């Protein structure tokens, strides 16, 4: 049995890409500064030296062109991994993602699949302000034809890429910027993960906390604090934002009868809204309390640390929301 080695989320992302490049000659990495610079968040550092410029392609700053090129290349037999520096920049490629990647399989009557993986950084917390800090994965989760993943753990960061590349559909992987430095031991017993199911990261009877990505750890922290007060929470890590693993959410809510959704996206029209609505549609008569959300405050992400922290979901806000839901105000 191998022993657990100390590693980081960033290293797990890198090893996942490396393993994919080794496993399949059709795989290549393409994006801004992925080669010589080593990746904006240093995920692809060292890969250029190992795999060469054909397979670790620095691109010009033309998101639409290189994302669209990834789509075309996937259609024509390759398995591209396209990196977009941050979700805010992905808007420059939204045309290609929505109008081509997500629609061509259906629009062509099933003649063309787009086996493409797009990775991008998301989320706030590093004082990067309003053009580098948003969580727009909920927008992407709105789009039929895409699969949306949000690895929150080392194991998911390490092992989600392989099934994503095997998938015949365009898969977008959102990596939260606050997780890259997260250190831990990669569970040696895990050698693969699925990209279909949510994971219940903590079990409890009193309330269901639904979250994903960077918010998972705040939510788990809140759940531990609540346990000290005798409130036991189920914590669901969605992992897959589209298609949603509705069964896991509903099973939990039917048990606990209460749900709080924690989502770093803005509240209005959010993924949290979607999850809440699904619960309302399918588990209404199991609810013993109103649904609640803890989302980012509705402002462009500010720069100053105290403002940014106030805008982001926090474990304190999660705790307060759960307390209120269980009638334990104060």
């Amino acid at each position, binding site marked *: 049995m191998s022993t657990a080695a100390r590693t980081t989320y960033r290293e797990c992302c890198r090893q996942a890409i490396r393993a994919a490049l080794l496993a399949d000659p059709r795989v290549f990495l393409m994006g801004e500064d992925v080669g010589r610079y080593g990746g904006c968040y240093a995920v692809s550092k060292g890969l250029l030296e190992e795999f060469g410029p054909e397979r670790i392609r620095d691109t010009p700053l033309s998101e639409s062109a290189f994302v669209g090129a990834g789509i075309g290349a996937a259609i024509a037999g390759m398995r591209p991994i396209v990196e977009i520096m941050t979700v805010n920049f992905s808007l420059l490629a939204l045309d290609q993602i929505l109008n081509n990647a997500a629609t061509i399989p259906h629009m062509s009557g099933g003649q063309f699949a787009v086996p493409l993986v797009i990775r991008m950084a998301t989320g706030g917390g590093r004082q990067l302000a309003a053009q580098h800090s948003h969580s727009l994965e909920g927008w992407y989760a709105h789009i039929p034809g895409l699969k949306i993943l949000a690895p929150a753990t080392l194991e998911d960061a390490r092992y989600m890429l392989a099934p994503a590349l095997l998938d015949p559909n365009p898969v977008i992987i959102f990596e939260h910027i606050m997780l890259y430095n997260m250190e831990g031991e990669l569970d040696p017993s895990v050698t693969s993960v699925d990209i279909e199911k949510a994971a219940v990261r903590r079990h409890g009877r009193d309330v269901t906390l639904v979250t994903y990505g960077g918010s998972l750890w705040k939510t788990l922290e809140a759940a531990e604090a609540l346990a000290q007060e005798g409130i036991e929470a189920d914590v669901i890590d969605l992992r897959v934002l589209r298609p949603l693993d509705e069964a896991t959410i509903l099973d939990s809510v039917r048990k606990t*009868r209460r749900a709080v959704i924690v989502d770093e996206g803005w509240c209005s029209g959010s993924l949290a809204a979607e999850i809440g609505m699904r619960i309302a549609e399918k588990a209404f*008569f199991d609810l013993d*309390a*109103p649904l609640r959300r803890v989302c980012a405050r509705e402002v462009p992400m500010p720069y100053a640390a105290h403002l940014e922290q106030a805008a982001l979901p926090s474990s304190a806000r999660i705790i307060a929301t759960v307390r209120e839901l*269980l*009638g334990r105000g104060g």
Partner: protein
Amino acid sequence: MALFRMPSLGADMEAGTLVEWRIKTGEPVRRGQVVAVVETQKGAIEVECFEEGVVEELLVPLGQKVPVGTPLARIRGAGEEAAAAAPSPAEPAAPLAVTEPTPAAAPSARERGPQLPPASAPAPAAARAIKVTPAARRRALELGVALERVHGTGPEGAITVADVEAAARGAAAELPPGPPVAPARAREAPEKPSPRHGFDPVAMRKAIAAAMSRSKREIPHYYLESTIDLNRALAFVEARNRERPPPARLLPAVLLLKATALALRKTPELNGFWLEGGFRPGPGIHLGWAISLRGGGLVAPAIHDVDRLDLDALMAAMRDLVQRARTGGLRSSELADATFTVTNLGERGAEAVWPVIYPPQVAILGFGRIVKRPWVDEAGGLVVRPLLRVTLAGDHRASDGHLGSRLLAEIDDLLQRPEAL
């Protein structure tokens, strides 16, 4: 305006027959007053009312069998205006389909012609004002609990599932903590219950069959047994009784119940319910005490807060309960809210009993017959001692044998120090 409804006295009760009104139209009623007697498959049960006010109208005639939740009477609160005579169209008295209308009633119904409720019957004011969660509303329907009398503890004061279940178990959850209520209420028991209050043995057998089948089907029982030396406990009872006239005397069973209740304080995981796939702790230590009935059958009414009763109060409660159980004078709140059950075979029973858990409780304790047997005492000497075999059946979904063992060990320990009980 409040409605007094056919209460649910247990998860297996679906309907009841109104056999006696203890109130009349125009009379005042107090909270907790026994207002009616209802015949169930478990026998006649006095039913308390949880409203204050004046009886405005009795809605169900004697002898009618109605489903749980059916309004039985309308009670006008203090200061409220008298309402129109007709029952609220949204809340019609609903006889069970199996009940044939009496020949006398049928013609008058024909004379009146069909009476359909208006298409848009307004909801009763109380139903509009209170907040109830969807799950609680469904649970209330299942348990036949009138939401008007449930106190909400959820967000914005909403009634939650836990509130409904607490209300269904009786008024305990609504009363402020204080002296136990069971002995005080015992004084209201009728001296001579009418013969029709006896239990129907066939219906009772069916009820026991349903509950016990469900238990054995759903609950993975585990069993633990200990033999306890009762030498000190019996000597304590004997010495105490020697100085007292018969009405003040104790039975050894009192010590067993008290020891059980005190031990449960240390293992709260065994005192409560398995509901919706999870354990819910009981609101207090309310021991169901299995009482066998003459002519067969069994009831297990609850004695509330046994851990807080002194031995004399507990003995009084037990005597009262046995008396009323055997004459059919049990109250609604006593039958539905035990958090743990004890069965005691007594001096003429078998040496040990492996009891079956009463769902949704999670454990039951069985005391066998006290027998004299050889025993090795603390000094290692062989002696003859009165021994008692105590058997715990636990719900393995809710607890493990380790916890059960702690309960038995604690009971043993307490029975070796009877003066502390």
